[in-house]
């Protein structure tokens, strides 16, 4: 009985073992099934890779489109807008000045001196328009103190990557402030009196100009423009009185300007200008009063230290002396060291001398000291304060006092 039981168990085990082991044919089927599954999985992997790649491309394309929408590159209108630039600057001043000579009133006034809008447009990569409209003294019109002025409106075309031609109404290339005068870029509430009364900043004319680089860091600008027109019949003789502002300007006697600048060392600018005026009276008088302007300047910054200095002189035909003795020479100069105490706080001192009757034997020159501070709230917003005192001959205003200002550019 025991043997029978043992035999039965062995038989069962053997038959179970035989049942669990597939035959070769069965194994072949299993291998084929597994191979098919592997192939299917591989195909799925390839497909997944492709989908991933496709999704990656889609994400890139979406990002590109979103960026284009964000930056406005998706329509003709936005493309036009992208090629159009707008900007400007403004400055408000408070002047509290006492006139030490008995020939006029003291000054105690607040004035939004300048509010300027720039508008530029690129027609293509080589041709563009730039314009600047200014409202001076806040309110213009009959009997009002201010003016609306077109200060720049010209077409500029690149003849090569270093040579440009300009046609229209543009700033005369002379001095430091005439072409760059945003309030955040210079010290002092008011623009200095040498560039104002001698150069005379801000000075624009209509005509043609050519500018470019001669060598790296050495540039030139030549301009052929309308000229000054001083109303000698009214007794005017100061250069500043001759600005016609290209407003139905008499074009009988043009002006020729040659300017060169060297900026080949970091922080340094050396500049010089010569200009010939064919007739300061535009031929309206018996004598042609022609004139030459000579101007040179240096602007230097090394770390916190800055220095600006400029000299300008007019050599005018002696015939102008019949209008005002000594007006045949008009000149001035200034020197302005400055120190950036902190990244956003700078102090300066300036000594200036100018004379619109330098050809006379008498004492006619005016000198001025300015000391002050600029505080840049942010890069494009500045608060200014300065104290000035002048030494002027009898008969001329001699102003002493303080000025406050706020300016911005955008």
């Amino acid at each position, binding site marked *: 009985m025991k043997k029978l039981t043992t035999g039965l168990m062995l038989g069962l085990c053997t038959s179970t073992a035989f049942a669990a082991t597939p035959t070769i044919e069965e194994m072949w089927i299993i291998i084929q099934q597994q191979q098919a599954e592997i192939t299917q999985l591989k195909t799925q992997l390839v497909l997944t890779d492709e989908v991933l790649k496709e999704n990656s491309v889609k994400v890139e394309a979406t990002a590109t489109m979103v960026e284009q929408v964000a930056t406005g590159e998706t329509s003709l209108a936005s493309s036009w807008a992208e090629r159009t630039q707008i900007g400007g600057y403004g400055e408000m001043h408070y002047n509290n000045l006492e006139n030490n000579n008995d020939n006029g009133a003291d000054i105690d006034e607040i004035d939004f001196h300048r509010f300027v809008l720039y508008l530029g447009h690129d027609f293509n990569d080589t041709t563009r328009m730039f314009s600047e409209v200014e409202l001076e003294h806040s309110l213009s019109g009959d009997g009002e103190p201010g003016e609306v002025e077109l200060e720049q409106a010209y077409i500029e075309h690149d*003849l*090569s990557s270093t040579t440009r031609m300009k046609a229209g109404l543009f700033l005369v290339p002379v001095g430091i402030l005439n072409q760059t005068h945003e309030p955040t870029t210079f010290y002092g509430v008011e623009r200095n009196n040498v560039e104002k009364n001698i150069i005379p900043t801000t000075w624009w004319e209509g005509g043609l100009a050519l500018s*470019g680089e001669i060598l790296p860091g050495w540039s030139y600008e030549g301009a052929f423009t309308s000229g000054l027109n001083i109303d000698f019949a009214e007794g005017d003789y100061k250069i500043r009185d001759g600005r016609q502002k290209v407003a139905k300007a008499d074009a009988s006697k043009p002006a020729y300007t040659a300017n060169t600048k060297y900026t080949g060392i970091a922080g340094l600018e050396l500049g010089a200008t010569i200009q010939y005026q064919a007739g300061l009276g535009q031929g309206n008088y018996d004598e042609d009063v022609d004139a030459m302007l000579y101007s040179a300047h240096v602007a230097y910054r090394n770390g916190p230290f800055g220095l600006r200095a400029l000299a300008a002189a007019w050599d005018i035909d002696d015939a102008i002396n019949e209008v005002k003795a000594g007006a045949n020479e008009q000149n001035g100069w200034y020197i302005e060291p400055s120190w950036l105490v902190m990244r956003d706080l700078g102090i300066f001192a300036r000594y200036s001398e100018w004379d619109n009757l330098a050809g006379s034997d008498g004492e006619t020159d005016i000198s001025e000291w300015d000391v002050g501070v600029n505080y840049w709230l942010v890069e494009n917003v500045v608060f200014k304060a300065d104290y000035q005192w002048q030494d002027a001959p009898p008969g001329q205003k001699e102003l002493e006092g303080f000025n406050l200002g706020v300016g911005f550019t955008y």
Partner: protein
Amino acid sequence: MKIFAGFGYRSGIAIVLLTMAFSVIGEEYIGRDEFLGLACGDKKPEMQTLWITEETRDAAKAAVGWFPPALRLRYWQEGNCTAWILEDIGKDKPITLGIAVSGNRIERVEVLAFRETRGWEIRYPFFTSQFSGLTLATDGYLSDSIDGITGATLSVRAVERVARLALWLDMQVNG
């Protein structure tokens, strides 16, 4: 004084036209590939993409004050050297700059495109070489001051801003 009295408008136009005829042929700006070839030594860096999250944008603004309007930035990397091509506006037009950074220091600054009327001097080595070796200070400014260019203050500031951002981005990529 009447030495030029014979000059008139016709002679003025003639002078301008004559000068135009002899105007110098210009020097081209360095191209993108040329910059990338110079950025990280002999080996040209590989292009990478840095996706910008809101956190990244906010952190950059907090650190260096600005960030361009982009969802991702392309940059190029070889070892610990990164090269960035970024744009910022000077006065009213974008300036395209190439900045190479290695070991958290600026290796090279190149102006790839300048579109403003004034301030083109920023492309010359006498200006760009001042950036070499500068790092990002803890206040988010450059570790040393840059001597600017008279009449191009806004363009100079734009280059400084881009250099600061490139240093900050390099730190995000290389740590």
